């Protein structure tokens, strides 16, 4: 039987033209048709006053077709728990329109009541990706799990907390490179070394500001092929298997250790001297200069040399350690001349100097 009029709680009755005239069957929807352009009043809500509006009441929901639904000021559109809202077209009617919509783009307000899909800010369910920079504007706090912050005084701040480390920096192979233990204040270089990006740069030790005298900026270890010459002319020939001296330079301190053999000579004339890996540096007065028992000649058989042989470090000599003799009887020191040593002898060095 066709429905011609519905009256309930003051609802205005519908003209017959508004009512579906086909007889309803069990399970059919109730359809209210405002095809004549008149207002339709359902439960106090006004559907479109001018457009054709069709309200279909289904057993599982409400479907507005061909037109919009108007919720008046002061009223509430309530979506029950378990219900969903699906935007299958434009967002018109929800109060905002999404511009630049694309998959995974994060939506931001555009300041004009609309929404914008950010091309440079995406989230795929796992990774939040930013094309550009992230600039925190606030400080971090104690107990932050993993936070990035900023203050005008401290600049970039990284804070975290974990059961083993509070901060961990890893490389692409997931290997820990730098870490700070939980609650700790030491920085640990876990798997590598510290490499300065610029040569001759170092670490200021024992001070809190850059002080030249506290800068450790050089370390080197190696060997060098020594030469033995004389101050005036000529030289000595070394055994190829006994001609190297090891050195280690720490800051401005050089330590040399070695044993070399002279096997023959080429017209030596003058003070015997052995080469150094670095030239001694000039310091105030004789600071940095001096004789050393750590450099001596051994195995030489000269009958007149009743003396102790010593080496000498001095910037004026360049990278050589000349030898001197301290006469036993008088304590006088003279340079060790070529004629005070045999053709074949050895030189032993185990000395430290500044370069």
């Amino acid at each position, binding site marked *: 039987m066709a429905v011609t009029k519905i009256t309930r709680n003051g609802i205005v009755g519908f003209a017959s033209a508004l009512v579906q005239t086909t007889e309803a069957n069990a399970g059919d929807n109730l359809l209210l048709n405002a095809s004549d352009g008149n207002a339709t009043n359902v439960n106090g809500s006004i559907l479109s006053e001018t457009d054709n509006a069709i309200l279909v009441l289904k057993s599982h929901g409400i479907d507005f077709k061909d037109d919009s639904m108007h919720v008046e000021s002061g009223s509430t559109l309530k979506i029950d728990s378990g219900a969903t809202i699906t935007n299958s077209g434009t967002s018109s009617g929800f109060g905002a329109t999404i511009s630049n919509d694309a998959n995974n783009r994060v939506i931001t307000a555009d300041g004009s009541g609309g929404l914008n899909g950010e091309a440079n800010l995406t989230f795929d369910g796992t990774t939040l990706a930013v094309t550009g920079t992230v600039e925190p504007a606030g400080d971090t706090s104690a107990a932050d799990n993993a936070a990035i912050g900023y203050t005008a005084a401290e600049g970039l701040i990284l804070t975290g907390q974990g059961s083993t480390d509070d901060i961990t920096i890893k490389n692409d192979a997931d290997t820990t490179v730098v870490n700070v233990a939980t609650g700790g204040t030491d920085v640990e270089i876990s798997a590598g070394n510290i490499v300065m990006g610029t040569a001759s740069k170092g670490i200021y030790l024992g001070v809190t500001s850059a002080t030249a005298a506290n800068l450790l900026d050089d370390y080197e270890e190696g060997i060098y092929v020594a030469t033995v010459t004389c101050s005036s002319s000529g030289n000595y020939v070394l055994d190829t298997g006994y001609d190297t001296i090891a050195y280690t330079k720490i800051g401005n301190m050089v330590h040399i250790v070695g044993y070399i053999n002279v096997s023959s000579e080429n017209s030596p004339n003058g003070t015997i001297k052995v080469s150094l890996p670095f030239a001694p540096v000039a310091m105030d007065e004789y600071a940095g200069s001096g004789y050393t028992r750590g450099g001596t000649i051994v195995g030489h058989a000269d009958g007149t040399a009743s003396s102790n042989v010593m080496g000498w470090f001095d910037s004026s000599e360049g990278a050589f350690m000349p030898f001197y003799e301290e006469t036993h009887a008088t*304590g006088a020191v003279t340079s060790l001349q070529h004629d005070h040593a045999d053709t074949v002898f050895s030189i032993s060095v185990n000395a430290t100097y500044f370069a």
Partner: protein
Amino acid sequence: MALTEKTEVDKCEVLSNGVIQARTALVIERDGVEISRKYINRKVYHPGEDVSNAPDMVKKIAEVEHTDAAITAFAEARAAGEARRLAMSGG
């Protein structure tokens, strides 16, 4: 996998008095990638010293740094140091 070995003068330092300190390194590479560098020699070239057999890098530096003035100054400083040292030590 190809291992290659070469030596190179990888550092030259010039001191204010014209002394040139050259370092020679032994470099081992695997497929062109350095895997080891060891310093096998250091040689110091003083003003006035013969550099005809020195590495090219040293020769070029010496052309600039080992001027007549630098050679004279270094020789005078060396002689003065020697004399001062012996006089101080009773030699």
